[in-house]
């Protein structure tokens, strides 16, 4: 450890040097390898062991189950599509083939996302002459998990660049963004390349090797796409019943399908108190309320009649609620505001999804709308606090 430290110190470029990016890269590597030994100067003499890197790494850890499941599921859906496995066979059949196939498809997305994102962040550090901050550790992992598997790599690169520059750095970097960075990337692709991102082109990989061919009657649509057409029966038929959607071997974005895998992540985040339980709970309640309203008004067999619990298992709802809505920077910052914020996401997510024919997935847009409304929600809470104090002056 001492040897590594000495080596790093020897490599340190001068901060007044000709290449500020060299200093930024050195500092980023050094603070990744070592927690610097700065001591407290003004104020408290002892400090908590927690820092932003530790917080971020816990979130990344919480995403690993969804990532691993996603890799396996990509392979599984691919083999289903080309007929090498069928739905009657046990899911674990051909485990390694499925997992390796999926890993080979997903890892390039992760590499591109981190590479482009961190590269741009280092450039901004060099320009602004400060060390790199840890925000992108989490966003870099979130971006691949909300992408469909067949998205072209160049699109992910462009989307990440857009999200980091316009969504984050322009506002001041980590801690200053108004909208969720990963969702900005996804929304960019959704609006800039709509034909490529919707429909049946990208959700299941149907690349064929010599001699393979797609199964008869194969449609690459996701569960939500089918549910719009045929309601609950369509879902059960395609193998996306409530239980199957809960377990997650259905087509969809890489990380969003398995509620179990996301649930493990949620438990990690809640146990370590990193994500707000208020936001998660109120979002689930909001989603259930909206879906139940649709159940009451909807005709039998239609999309609206898909039972509330089943509705929450589908699409990006679980992933969005656990990992995106709970992002502390963009969410409401007051404890009371978090209840309103989460509830809004639940209601709007299901509303946009079910009622709007143009947007099959409403959670992304609901979270973005809630991000923009969070300052207003907080403002109301703060004003209430101020008014309470003023009333005390009057009655005193």
């Amino acid at each position, binding site marked *: 450890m001492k040897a590594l430290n000495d080596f790093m110190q020897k490599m340190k470029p001068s901060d007044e040097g000709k290449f500020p990016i060299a200093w930024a890269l050195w500092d980023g590597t050094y603070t990744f390898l070592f927690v610097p030994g700065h001591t407290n100067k003004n104020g408290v003499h002892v400090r908590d062991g*927690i820092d932003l890197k530790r917080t971020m790494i816990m979130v990344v850890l919480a995403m690993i189950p969804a990532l691993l499941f996603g890799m396996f599921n990509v392979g599984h859906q691919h083999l289903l599509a080309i007929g090498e496995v069928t739905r009657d066979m046990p899911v674990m059949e051909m485990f390694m083939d499925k997992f390796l196939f999926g890993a080979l498809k997903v890892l390039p997305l992760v590499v591109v996302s981190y590479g482009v994102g961190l590269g741009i962040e280092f450039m901004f550090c060099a320009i602004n002459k400060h060390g790199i901050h840890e925000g992108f550790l989490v966003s870099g992992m979130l971006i691949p998990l909300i992408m469909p598997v067949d998205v072209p790599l160049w699109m992910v690169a462009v989307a990440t660049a857009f999200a980091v520059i316009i969504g984050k750095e322009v506002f001041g970097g980590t801690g200053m963004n108004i909208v969720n960075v990963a969702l900005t990337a996804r929304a960019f692709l959704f609006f800039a390349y709509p034909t490529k991102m919707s429909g049946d082109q990208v959700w299941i990989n149907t690349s064929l090797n010599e001699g393979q061919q797609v199964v008869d009657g194969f449609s690459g649509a996701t569960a939500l796409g089918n549910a719009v057409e045929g309601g609950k029966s369509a879902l059960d038929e395609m193998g996306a019943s409530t239980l199957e959607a809960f377990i997650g071997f259905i087509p969809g974005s890489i990380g969003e399908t398995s509620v179990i895998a996301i649930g493990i992540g949620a438990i990690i985040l809640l146990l370590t108190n990193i994500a707000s339980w208020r936001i998660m709970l109120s979002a689930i309640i909001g989603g259930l309320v909206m879906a139940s309203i649709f159940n009451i008004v909807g005709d039998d067999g239609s999309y609206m009649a898909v039972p509330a619990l089943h509705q929450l298992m589908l699409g990006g709802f679980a992933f969005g609620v656990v990992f995106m809505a709970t992002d502390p920077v963009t969410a409401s910052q007051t404890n009371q505001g978090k209840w309103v914020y989460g509830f809004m996401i639940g209601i709007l997510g299901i509303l946009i999804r079910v009622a709007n024919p143009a947007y099959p997935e409403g959670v992304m847009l609901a979270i973005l709308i809630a991000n923009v409304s969070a300052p207003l929600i907080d403002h109301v809470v703060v004003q209430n606090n101020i008014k309470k104090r003023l009333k005390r002056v009057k009655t005193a």
Partner: protein
Amino acid sequence: MSQIVKISKGANIKLTGTAEKVLGNIEMPTSFAVCPPNFHGLMPKLSVKTGDKVKAGSTLFFDKYNEQIKFTSPISGEVTEIIRGAKRKILEVKLKADAVLAYEQFVVSSASAADVKSALLISGLWPFVKQRPYDIVANPSDSPKAIHITGLDSSPMAADYEFLIHGQEDVFQAGLDVIAKLTAGKVHLNVNANAKSVFDSAKNVQINKISGPHPAGNVGIQVHHIDPVNKGEIVWVLKAPDVLAIGKLFKEGKYDASKVVALVGSKVSSPKYYKVLPGANIKEMFGNEINNGARVISGNVLSGDDVSIDGYIGFYDYQICAIPEGGEDEMFGWMAPGFNKFSLSKTFFSWMTPNKEYDLNTNMNGEERAFVVTGEYEKVFPMDILPVFLLKSMITEDIDAMEGLGVYEVAPEDFALCEYGCTSKIETQKIVRKALDLVKQECG
């Protein structure tokens, strides 16, 4: 009618090196200093120059903006040196003590509020009386709506105030009687609900029982829960051991500054209580007790001053801490399990062992970042105030927002736990202090 206050938010930081409840023997040193920076918000003007002879209770300097507030010498002897810093700011008035102390004799009367005030002012005991808002030395011409005395200190390794008062209950009562004259409102004595209190027999005061984790002992928190300060109101605050010095003045007519302090911390060979005088040189008194590589703090580890071993015991402080000075880089420290670290968060294992004592050093354990995590300040800030919003209005110097959000009720020490647990390593107390000074300057 006495109130029961249960503080639910906060945290007790258990550190190794709490003082054993025994009084150790120590010789009085010869080197002393009274440091104007101990008294925040004051512009000192010297009454003495190098070479002057003083007695215990002689004025050394006074506040330029309020000349009645005098700051006096704790010992008799000679002024040896005046240490100045940048812009000729007076940092220390160094003194050399006589072997036997001689005291200034004061004619004290406790007949009326004005008499009490003039006695406290001339003897140099007035600075014990601080105020909310602004957390500065009180202005004698104000009329506070109440006076609060905190009878417990909940900070890490704190001195037990009941141990300090024990055996001097009559002096304490004399002090309370005198303080009661200073306000038309009530005098609140806020005591530890869980301890068998030496304060139970106190008269002329309303005894309130306080329980809960730190910062339950902070007088500002107690004021907030019992009778909050609104805009335009003033509350005077003291600590229980301060009352002893006041009682002694009115019983004996002299400024007997001696107090019992706790010498604590993992770098102290044998933590105990000692009877000292404020302003005593720490190295001369405790040089043998404190091991190498320590950061010496006058006050507690959350809000105290880094005085170094060559420094002096502060006027207001009842503990001296010696904790390990950090400074070493830690490889992958942010990923490591960190069994030796105490954390307010659940990302370490400290929440599983609430009674374990930790030996923390002065490492920052990270670098300064923007605000990212939300909800962590609120968990350890037991006031009905939004701490992060108040802090942000302080950073942006938005006085209207600060007023609305409760700046009149807070002191930097109330934010100390927030600063401890801050993920983004922000210098919270420094920001609060600067803002309080700004509001005092702009709003009076």
